[in-house]
């Protein structure tokens, strides 16, 4: 199949705009899986259209779900007037945002002020490109993988694109020329930089245990999902439980969600970095937050929760049905994880800034590092016994947390109580404890 298509392409391809090789992914060999060029092109465009729209509809669904679930958790109804059970509420909101006057305050730095919402929204959308949202589907004799781009540095791509998200917040905050915005932006950038480390380190253990077939790359998300297999007890969240918790926590921090939403703490900073934004520009910040949640959930599901696998259910049915089922499984897992996002929001109160930094640097980072050391050590000494690695990781994380906690308690600086500056001292000792 592939040889035939290559012959055709090399015969006429030299003068064509889409010459053969022009579409081989610049980020390493795109696993074309024997697809002819035109099928690859067509299927890619269809996949991009479907996923981009699913993401946008997902944002709408999430806004509705968040408001209804919040209402349910607080024993009230939530929006239920517009359409059946309030399902059309997000559309009404969207129309409202679009029709509102597009205000640009006089005191802002105009180019960056306009650019900032897009700088947050674009990385949020780009990340989904490398996430496999299902197994593969067979149409007209071609096996099409359910993933937009299977690049061999998938994980690095995700880390790189996620790290771009902070620009939208920082530039929006600075361009607003408003002290509340600036404070929010400072908090947010410090938080995102701190938790990015944990995010990256928590994945290393997973990569170590990812078994790939010849020619594959352990950094590809498809390979990571595939190597976890179909059974729950082989999924990474059990083998790397501390790393999974650290990763999830860092993910919450990266998306600026409660309990990490200091950047937009309404009691202190009005609305933080988007204080000066209104109408559709505000809506873009809002959409980016939800999009980040959806993509973050999808990445977590792929890395730790077995991707599209569920006890072999993904293999039931014919070549088309099994593909759709695998997509459904992935969708359901992502949805459950998104529910956890909302659940946590109404369970945990917001952290104080020093608590946030302590958690990130003194607990999550050591736990992620211990997970790397223990996984590597046990992988070599126990010949890859996953049960032992799982137990070892939990024990090591427990020891690390106890040691760090003990050290923090022992080294607590003595309280100084000079009457004149008592208030100041209390603040400072809290800041350094």
């Amino acid at each position, binding site marked *: 199949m592939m040889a035939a298509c290559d012959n055709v392409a090399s015969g006429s391809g*030299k*003068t064509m*705009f*889409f*010459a053969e*090789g*022009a*579409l*081989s*992914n*610049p*980020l*390493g*060999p795109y696993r074309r899986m024997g697809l002819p060029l035109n099928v690859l092109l067509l299927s890619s465009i269809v996949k991009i259209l479907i996923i981009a729209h699913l993401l946008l509809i997902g944002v709408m669904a999430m806004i509705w779900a968040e408001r209804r679930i919040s209402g349910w958790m607080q024993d009230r109804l939530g929006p239920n007037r517009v359409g059946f059970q309030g399902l059309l509420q997000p559309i009404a909101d969207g129309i409202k945002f679009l029709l509102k006057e597009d205000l640009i305050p006089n*005191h802002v*730095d105009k*180019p*960056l002020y306009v650019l900032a919402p897009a700088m947050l929204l674009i990385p949020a959308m780009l990340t989904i490109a490398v996430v496999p949202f299902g197994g593969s589907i067979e149409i007209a004799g071609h096996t099409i993988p359910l993933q937009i781009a299977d*690049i*061999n*540095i998938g994980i*690095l*791509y995700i*880390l*790189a*694109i*996620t*790290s*771009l998200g*902070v*620009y939208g917040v*920082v*530039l929006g*905050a*600075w361009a607003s*020329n408003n*002290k509340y915005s*600036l404070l929010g*932006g*400072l908090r947010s*950038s*410090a938080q*995102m*930089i701190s938790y*990015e480390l944990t995010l*990256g380190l928590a994945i290393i253990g997973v990569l170590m245990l990812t078994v790939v077939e010849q020619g594959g*790359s352990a*950094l590809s998300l498809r390979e990571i999902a595939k190597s976890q297999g179909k059974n729950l007890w082989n999924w990474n969240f059990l083998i790397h439980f501390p790393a999974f918790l650290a990763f999830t926590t860092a993910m919450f921090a990266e998306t600026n969600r409660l309990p990490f939403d200091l950047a937009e703490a309404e009691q202190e900073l009005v609305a933080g970095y988007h204080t000066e934004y209104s109408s559709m520009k505000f809506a873009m910040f809002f959409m980016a937050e939800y999009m980040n949640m959806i993509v973050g959930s999808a990445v977590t599901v792929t890395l730790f929760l077995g991707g599209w696998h569920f006890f072999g259910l993904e293999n039931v049915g014919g070549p088309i049905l099994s593909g759709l089922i695998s997509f459904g499984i992935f969708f359901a897992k992502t949805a459950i994880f998104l529910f956890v996002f909302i659940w946590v929001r109404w369970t945990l109160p917001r952290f104080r800034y020093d608590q946030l930094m302590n958690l990130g640097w003194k607990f999550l980072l050591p736990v992620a590092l211990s997970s790397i050391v223990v996984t590597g050590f046990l992988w070599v000494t126990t010949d890859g016994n996953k049960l032992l690695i799982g137990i070892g990781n939990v024990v090591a994380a427990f020891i690390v947390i106890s040691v760090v906690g003990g050290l923090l308690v022992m080294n607590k*600086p003595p309280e*100084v109580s000079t009457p004149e500056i008592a208030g100041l001292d209390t603040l*400072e000792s809290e800041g*350094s404890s």
Partner: protein
Amino acid sequence: MEFTLKTLIFYGFALLTVASGIVVVTVRNIVHAAFSLMVTLFGVAGLYVFLQADFLAATQVIVYVGGILVLILFGVMMTSGRLEMRIHIERGQLLLGAVVAIALLMLLLAVIANTPQWKNVADDGTQLQPTTESIGTLILNGQFLLPFEVVSVLLLVALIGAALISRKEVRE
């Protein structure tokens, strides 16, 4: 060299890099310059992809765009939140900058002149190979182990030094 989509993308990235680089050195507003530098670094990452350096491209974005430049912006915002923050350029700096830039240009021209044959990696038809694994093997299998460890220790020392300097004085 025939005109392919890849050539077009390559020149797009090249234009992006050079144009935003010019903006970096000409614009007087420091945050605008920093933002422009982000575009430059991003463009350079794109050029790395065309040099078959996929790992380097991703690392470039993670380290420079996502890390170092954010810290620069962070520093600027910490020191001055005002919009009218301007860069003051003195004649000495201008002269020194020109000397360095011309020296670098000479060096690059010498390399270009002395290279017998130019080959565009993107166009020679060979499949691009992933580099992550080979880089990892080279670093940890002995050949570059010592430099790698030395750099690691250096960074650790810098980290501890920074923590020590920024530390609050402990009252007795």
